[in-house]
């Protein structure tokens, strides 16, 4: 019989206790995601100057996109492109939308993993200047150019789709709000793998950060819920976000931290301020994870270093005070406990940065909120 030291015993006991605690806190998530996740959620955090490279690296640290994209799969990628460039500015440098290289890198990885079809789609009502392609280099969002390159190399597997134009039907998923059911466009509902590609930004209302989960509000049909989707807000946007996530079960979240937006986001016209992330931490970052809640929580921790007052429980941290993250955790959609999230790549504390809070929309749940 192998003997162990007292220190080893305590270490192992803590590990087992932590594992049990995490697994008990994840009743829904661990059973609904096809075993992709362990009770200890993993989130990759990578810093660098070459955007495609750091995106690829983040996916590699998670064990590769092949974990969630199987050969022959239909993939739907939702970039947060719904709002950006309204004033004729560059929506990438303003931090309103994820960097196109991040979106393209994810699409490329899907194709390389054997995806049969990759749809990069968004439901947008306004004539965005970016049109998923940019206006002859003027607006910087050259996603179309990058996608064309992928298609040239791997065959025409990736398409850019405005869901408003191409949705043929809606599939309903249940909602615990007054709406009861939520209409999901068929191209999303029929995908084998749904991926969120979001950007680091704060929101002027009604939720203070807008990352991977909130991004999915942008697939919702404006013909039913209005533009902006106020019918979803009226029903309780926090729960609606979670009901969408439960319905479409995203398997991967990637957050672009090349440029971001602080303060009164989500667009320049609301008063949001562009952030060049490299100017704060010496490089761009990409955050990725299979657990949407853990990934969003990590992004939250990354940009809330100076948000005061700091919550007393550091293990829960600011994510506990972001209502939809807390509710997601409570409903078993994923993890927010820092002790249950394993960060791969960079050290989160080393990269955590100052970021303006949305003044008009600081969470009342934050302790000592004025």
């Amino acid at each position, binding site marked *: 019989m192998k003997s162990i030291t007292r220190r080893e015993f305590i270490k192992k006991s803590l590990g087992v206790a932590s594992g049990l605690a995490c697994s008990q806190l994840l009743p829904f998530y661990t059973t609904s995601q096809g075993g992709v996740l362990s009770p200890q959620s993993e989130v990759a955090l990578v810093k660098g100057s070459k955007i495609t490279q750091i995106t690829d690296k983040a996916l590699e640290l998670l064990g590769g996109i092949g974990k969630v994209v199987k050969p022959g799969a239909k993939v739907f990628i939702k970039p947060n492109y719904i709002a950006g460039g309204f004033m004729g500015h560059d929506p990438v440098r303003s931090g309103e939308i994820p960097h196109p290289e991040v979106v393209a890198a994810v699409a490329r990885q899907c194709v390389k993993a054997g995806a049969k079809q990759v749809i990069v789609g968004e439901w947008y009502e306004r004539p965005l200047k970016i049109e998923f392609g940019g206006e002859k280099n003027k607006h910087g969002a050259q996603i179309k150019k990058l996608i064309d390159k992928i298609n040239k190399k791997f065959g025409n597997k990736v398409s850019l789709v405005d869901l*408003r134009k191409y949705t043929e039907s809606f599939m309903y998923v249940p909602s615990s709000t007054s709406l009861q059911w939520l209409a999901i466009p068929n191209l999303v509902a029929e995908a084998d793998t749904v991926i969120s590609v979001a950007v680091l930004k704060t929101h002027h209302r009604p939720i203070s950060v807008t990352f991977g989960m909130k991004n999915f509000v942008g697939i919702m049909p404006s*013909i039913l819920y209005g533009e902006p989707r106020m019918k979803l807000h009226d029903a309780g946007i926090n729960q609606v976000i979670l009901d969408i996530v439960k319905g479409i079960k995203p398997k991967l979240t990637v957050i672009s931290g090349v440029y971001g937006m602080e303060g009164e986001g989500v667009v320049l016209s609301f008063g949001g301020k562009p952030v060049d992330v490299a100017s704060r931490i010496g490089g761009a970052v990409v955050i990725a994870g299979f657990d949407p809640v853990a990934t969003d929580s990590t992004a939250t921790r990354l940009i809330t270093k100076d948000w005061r007052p700091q919550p007393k429980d550091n293990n829960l941290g600011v994510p506990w005070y972001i209502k939809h993250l807390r509710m997601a955790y409570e409903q078993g959609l994923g993890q927010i406990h820092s002790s249950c999230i394993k960060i791969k790549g960079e050290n989160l504390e080393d990269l955590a940065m100052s970021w303006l809070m949305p003044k008009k929309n600081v969470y009342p749940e934050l302790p000592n909120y004025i």
Partner: protein
Amino acid sequence: MFILNYQIIFKNIVLIIIVASCFSADVKAQEMMYSFDIKDAQGSWEHAKLDARDVISTIKAKNIATVYIYVPKSGNYQLMVSLYHRWRKYCPFLYFKVKDSRGRFFSDYIFSENRFYMPAGKGRWEYRSPSASPYWYLNEGLAKVKFWVEAKNNCWEGKDVPMEGKIFIDKFVLISVDMKGMVQLSIKDENDILD
């Protein structure tokens, strides 16, 4: 006995006239999608032409109009309205009160975003649904749809403001919701300027 029969005959004639007038108002069944032109609308909205479409319009807040739509089969539906405006600053909110053939009653609202992204004087057609919470069960037969417009400062605060311009409606569409698969068809304006 004779009097009773006479009443039944009279009621049937009235019903036939109403149903026939609805079908003459262009009821198109297309994959469980039923379109109703607006030309038979009653009330104080003006009848006009816009983009070669027969429309009704109003520039007056709370001006009530009424249309009758024929529900071909009892079931769950989304009611869509095809509307147009050129407002750049404020948001029109449309309010609906619907009573089906058996007196089942629904009321809800929809709004349309201001066209801040379009050149002055330009508008666009769009479909919007007041019944997305999540759909309405309507009984077969004639349903009465009463509606009016109010102007709000934006789409989320809902403060009353003066009407910024006219609102135009050219048709209503009923789309059935398939409960078995929980599916409904999508719809878009074929001449949407954004396309």
